[in-house]
């Protein structure tokens, strides 16, 4: 069972570069999320989506963009990478029905230098 798959696992970016973190889930979940986790801090919501074609900002959306063209995929784009975006990024999903159990991807470690 694949669950939630994130790529890449590790990436080093230079300031000003752009990149996309990919996230896909094969559980037909409606809700998908992107979080970032800084050292010693809790997870902070960047963007979320309640279904294909619908996205919304979370707590810390600045510097990021998302799209949700299909139920399965929820890519996160960094347009102009900044050192403040050095973090671990987690994609997550959950079904609309059946409770709030969240399924996480394994995380993407991003360093901006």
């Amino acid at each position: 069972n694949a669950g939630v798959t994130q790529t890449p696992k590790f990436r080093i970016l230079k300031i000003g570069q752009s990149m996309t973190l990919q996230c896909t889930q094969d559980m037909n979940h409606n809700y998908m999320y992107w979080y970032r986790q800084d050292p010693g801090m809790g997870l902070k919501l960047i963007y979320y989506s309640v279904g294909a074609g619908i996205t919304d900002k979370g707590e810390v959306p600045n510097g990021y963009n998302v799209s949700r063209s299909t139920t399965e995929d929820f890519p996160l784009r960094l347009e102009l990478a900044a050192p403040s975006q050095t973090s671990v990024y987690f994609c997550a999903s959950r079904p609309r029905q059946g409770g709030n159990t969240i399924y996480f991807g394994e995380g993407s470690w991003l360093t901006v230098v």
Partner: protein
Amino acid sequence: EDKVVQSPLSLVVHEGDTVTLNCSYEVTNFRSLLWYKQEKKAPTFLFMLTSSGIEKKSGRLSSILDKKELFSILNITATQTGDSAVYLCVLGAGGATNKLIFGTGTLLAVQP
């Protein structure tokens, strides 16, 4: 404003000790409360609580919810070094957005 507060922020114990982690919350539209264990990777699911007073158990771990006093506790008995992790309390809110609100976690270190 919906929020989750965990205490203590960190805790150091010796193997065999029993620990209690606390999670208090405020929410407009409660749906569920979840506990996760996070080591060096993604959080892994422990419990989901929706009803007051019903203890959930899994091995040495147990958790209970009090919806009147707005808190939950996570107990770990006979701790082992493998229990060392950050324990996250997550509040599931209902309504149109179905938000998930994360606490900052309790860092548990179990020493041999």
